[in-house]
C-alpha cells in the first residue's frame, strides 16, 4: 500500500513539474521508476507512455475544442511519428538496456541544456521545450487565435502563418516517434521546436499541435509495449493517476510560481538524473 502511494506521489510531483515547465511526464517518470523504484527500463517506459497519453489526450481535447491545434498538419505529421514509433518500439527490445540508459542520460542532458537556455532567455515566460504531457489550462488558452485552428496544412495569409519545409517536418517527426518509443517520452521536445523554428508554425499552434500528436505517437509505441507484456496494470495505475493529478494541478499553478527559480532547480535535478542514469548505464 505504501509503495502504491509513493508511486502515486512521485507521479504527482512529476506531473506538477512537467506541467509547470512544459515538459511531458516521460522525462521525469522514467528516471523516477528506474532509479527510485529499481524497475527495468522497459517497464518504466511502458508506464511513462500510459501517463503521457492520458495527459496529452486531455489537453489535446481542450486545444481542439478551442481550435488552437492544426489538426490537418498534426495528422500529416502523425503518420510519420507513428511509423517512427513502430520502428523505435522494435529497436527498443533489441538494444541492450545499458545502452538505452546511456542514451536516456544524453536525452535528459539535452533537456537540461534546453531549460538552461530558457532560464537565460526569459525570466517570466515558460519555455515550451517539450509540449505535450500537461493538461491544458483553459484559462491559458482564452483569447487564442481561433483562425489558427482550422488552418489548412499549407496555411494561408489569413491564418497568419505558412507551413514550410514539410519534408524536414516529416523526417523530424519520424525521429520524434523513434525517441518516444525508446524513452517513453511524448516527443514534444523535438516536435515543438521543429514546427516552430523549421516549419514556421506559431509557437502556440506548434505546442497545441504537438500535444495532439503526442497521444498517437505514444499510443503507437504503447501498443507494442502492451503486446509484449511490458505495461503492468499494478504499476501503471497509481503512477499514471499521480501524473494526471499533478499535471492538472500544475496547469493551474503556472501563474503563481516563480518559473525562473523552478527551472534552475529543475536543471540541477535533471543534471543529477542524467549523471545517475549514466552511472547506471556503465555499472
Amino acid at each position, binding site marked *: 500500500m505504501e509503495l502504491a502511494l509513493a508511486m502515486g506521489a512521485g507521479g504527482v510531483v512529476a506531473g506538477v513539474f512537467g506541467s509547470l515547465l512544459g515538459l511531458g511526464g516521460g522525462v521525469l517518470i522514467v528516471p523516477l521508476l528506474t532509479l527510485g523504484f529499481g524497475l527495468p527500463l522497459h517497464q518504466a517506459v511502458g508506464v511513462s507512455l500510459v501517463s503521457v497519453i492520458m495527459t496529452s489526450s486531455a489537453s489535446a481535447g481542450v486545444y481542439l475544442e478551442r481550435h488552437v491545434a492544426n489538426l490537418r498538419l498534426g495528422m500529416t505529421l502523425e503518420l510519420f511519428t507513428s511509423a517512427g514509433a513502430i520502428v523505435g518500439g522494435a529497436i527498443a527490445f533489441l538494444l541492450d538496456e545499458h545502452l538505452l540508459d546511456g542514451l536516456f542520460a544524453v536525452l535528459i542532458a539535452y533537456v537540461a541544456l534546453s531549460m538552461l537556455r530558457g532560464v537565460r532567455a526569459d525570466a517570466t515566460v515558460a519555455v515550451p521545450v517539450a509540449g505535450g504531457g500537461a493538461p491544458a489550462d483553459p484559462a491559458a488558452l482564452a483569447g487564442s487565435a481561433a483562425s489558427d485552428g*482550422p488552418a489548412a496544412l499549407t496555411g494561408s495569409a489569413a491564418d497568419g502563418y505558412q507551413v514550410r519545409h514539410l519534408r524536414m517536418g516529416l523526417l523530424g517527426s519520424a525521429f520524434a516517434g523513434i525517441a518516444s518509443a525508446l524513452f517513453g517520452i511524448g516527443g514534444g521536445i523535438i516536435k515543438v521546436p521543429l514546427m516552430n523554428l523549421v516549419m514556421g508554425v506559431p509557437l502556440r499552434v506548434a505546442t497545441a499541435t504537438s500535444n495532439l500528436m503526442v497521444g*498517437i505517437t505514444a499510443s503507437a509505441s504503447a501498443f507494442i509495449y502492451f503486446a509484449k507484456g511490458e505495461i503492468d496494470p499494478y504499476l501503471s495505475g497509481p503512477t499514471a493517476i499521480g501524473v494526471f493529478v499533478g499535471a492538472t494541478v500544475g496547469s493551474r499553478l503556472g501563474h503563481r510560481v516563480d518559473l525562473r527559480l523552478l527551472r534552475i532547480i529543475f536543471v540541477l535535478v535533471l543534471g543529477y538524473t542524467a549523471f545517475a542514469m549514466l552511472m547506471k548505464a556503465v555499472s
Partner: protein
Amino acid sequence: MIDVEARIGRALIAMTFLGVGLLVAGVALMLIHGIGPLTASPTFDPGHLVSSLLALDPAAPLWLGLIVILVTPVARVIAAGIGYARHGQWAMVGIAAAIVIVIAIGVTSALITET
C-alpha cells in the same frame, strides 16, 4: 470541420476521464485488497474481463482503463477520418487510414515476435 474538431475534442476529454475513472477504481480495489504495485499482475485475458469486473478483481478495471487510454488517440484519428470523409477531403481520409494501418502493423508484428 470546426464543429467536428470541437466534437472530437469533447470526446477526447470524455474518454480520458473514463480511462482515469477506471484506473482510480482499479487502484482503490488494489488498496482494499492489499495488492502492491510490484505484485505480479495477471496477464491480460479479454475473455475473462467482464467476469473479473463483476468479481471486483482490481486488475480488471485497470486493464480496461489502460485499454481506453491507449485506444483514445486512435479513436480520435478514426473520428477525424470520418469527419474528413463527410467533407469530401479524401487526402486527409487517406492519411487517417494510413495512421491506423501503421499502428495495426506495429501491434501485429509485436504480437508475432512475442509468440
